[in-house]
């Protein structure tokens, strides 16, 4: 049994039963899960969580499911890496990387939300799960649907990276490539959800789905020894992740598992599609949509973010900041992270690292501040982004002389030897 009382409108507070609905009928505000925190606090403790499985399900009491996890049993509890080398490069002494490049099963943080959403869809009795996606979500929905024995439909913009399309198709879902932007795909899916009554994880199941992102924040705090960091840098597409990490930290504090939450939440977006960052920098709470997103960070290319306003609010309420990263800065930062920590991140990871560098340079993040960079997806999915930027292999004959020659020609190679 879970502790979710039902749903509640984020705008007007009106309560709703725990059904597959996502919009308040009165003010059209988004619905979110409402918990009985008093009852939860009697049950939840650090010890209870620590004795749970090494996955997101160690936080099951704080998630909106009634029974046991139906899919994604090994999802989450990814490494929090003490990033000394990257810290040195950025000028930070207490830097960590929350590394969801190794999230199971599809190598991005979307596994957290989808494991919760598909479990919930099965609890509701839906025979079909579906999503609109720029890639990572599609991979994850297809994999979890396969595991749960559900039929799945995945709608993607037709210009997606090949790696992400293949990484979805392998699980044998019904993939539909739409000639349009992510926003257009999403608009179509709202209509399909109404007409066919399927479980769209990011539409009618969205209140439950979004709760999975809280586990990213829970894990950071637990892995730091039940402590909230001073800074978390989070990439934003729709803006949900940053709001849920914040909610997760606040919940741990509310339950007495954290002494304080001094965390400043910083939002990172690409220069070619950064409406939330623009709102933060210009201090305006109405998000101005980006009509034609242009960035190599396709997983962040949502021009009209559904949770943009709430993401803006979290940044402002926590005293955080926001920055954009250009395509060149993203590629450079991907290489920096790989070259210093051995972590190959997708383009969104490049965005967060590049933005962290800027925030350090601006003095927003202090040298000795406890800082966590969120890396949310694996670089193997977006290899095209860095392909042209990498040095070609040295080509030699199978002789020692040939190797000596190349070593002499490439001083950088010799320096590493």
């Amino acid at each position: 049994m879970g502790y979710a009382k039902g749903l509640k409108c984020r705008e007007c507070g009106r309560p709703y039963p725990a059904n597959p609905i996502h919009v308040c009928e009165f003010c059209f505000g988004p619905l979110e899960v409402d918990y009985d925190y008093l009852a939860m606090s009697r049950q939840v403790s650090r010890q209870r969580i620590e004795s749970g499985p090494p996955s997101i399900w160690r936080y099951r009491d704080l998630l909106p499911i009634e029974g046991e996890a139906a899919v994604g049993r090994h999802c989450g509890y990814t490494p929090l890496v003490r990033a000394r080398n990257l810290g040195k490069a950025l000028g930070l002494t207490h830097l960590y990387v929350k590394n969801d490049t190794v999230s199971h099963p599809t190598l991005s943080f979307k596994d957290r939300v989808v494991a919760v959403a598909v479990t919930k869809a099965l609890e509701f009795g839906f025979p079909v799960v579906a999503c609109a996606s720029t890639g990572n979500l599609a991979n994850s929905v297809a994999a979890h649907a396969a595991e749960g024995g559900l039929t799945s439909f995945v709608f993607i913009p037709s210009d997606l990276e090949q790696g992400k399309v293949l990484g979805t198709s392998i699980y044998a879902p019904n993939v539909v490539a739409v000639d349009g932007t992510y926003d257009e795909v999403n608009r179509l899916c709202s209509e399909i959800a109404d007409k066919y009554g399927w479980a769209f994880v990011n539409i009618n199941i969205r209140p439950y789905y979004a709760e999975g992102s809280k586990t990213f924040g829970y894990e950071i705090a637990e892995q730091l020894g039940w402590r909230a960091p001073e800074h978390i840098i989070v990439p934003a597409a729709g803006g949900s992740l940053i709001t849920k990490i914040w909610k997760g930290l606040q919940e741990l504090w509310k339950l007495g598992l954290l002494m304080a939450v001094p965390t400043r939440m910083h939002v990172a977006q690409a220069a070619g599609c950064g409406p939330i960052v623009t709102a933060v920098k210009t201090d305006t709470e109405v998000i101005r949509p980006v009509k034609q997103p242009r960035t190599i960070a396709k997983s962040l290319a949502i021009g009209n973010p559904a949770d943009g306003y709430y993401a803006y609010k979290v940044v402002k309420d926590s005293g955080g900041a926001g920055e954009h990263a250009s395509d060149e800065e993203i590629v450079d930062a991907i290489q920096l992270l790989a070259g210093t920590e051995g972590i190959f991140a997708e383009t969104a990871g490049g965005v967060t690292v590049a933005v962290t560098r800027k925030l350090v340079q601006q003095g927003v993040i202090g040298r000795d501040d406890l800082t966590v960079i969120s890396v949310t997806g694996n670089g193997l999915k977006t290899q095209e982004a860095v392909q042209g930027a990498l040095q070609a292999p040295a080509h030699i004959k199978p002789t020692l002389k040939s190797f000596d020659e190349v070593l002499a020609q490439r001083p950088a190679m010799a320096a590493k030897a």
Partner: protein
Amino acid sequence: MATLRVTLTFPVDLVRQPVVYTVAKTYRLVPNIRRARVTESQGETTLDLTGTEEDLKQGIEHLTRLGVKVKPLGGAGA
């Protein structure tokens, strides 16, 4: 008759014009505003629009032509 739930985002030059009224009148749509946020530089209105399928289609196209961003409710993640 059909009903569409949308959020309209207005660029700065349209904030002071009666865009919703004009479109509703021209295309015989019934607007029911549920929520709005307006600043000095831009505005956002969440509402439902009721009308025939064809009138709704034309009304939305008209809004888009004016530079209003039309977004249906719901949809997150990527």
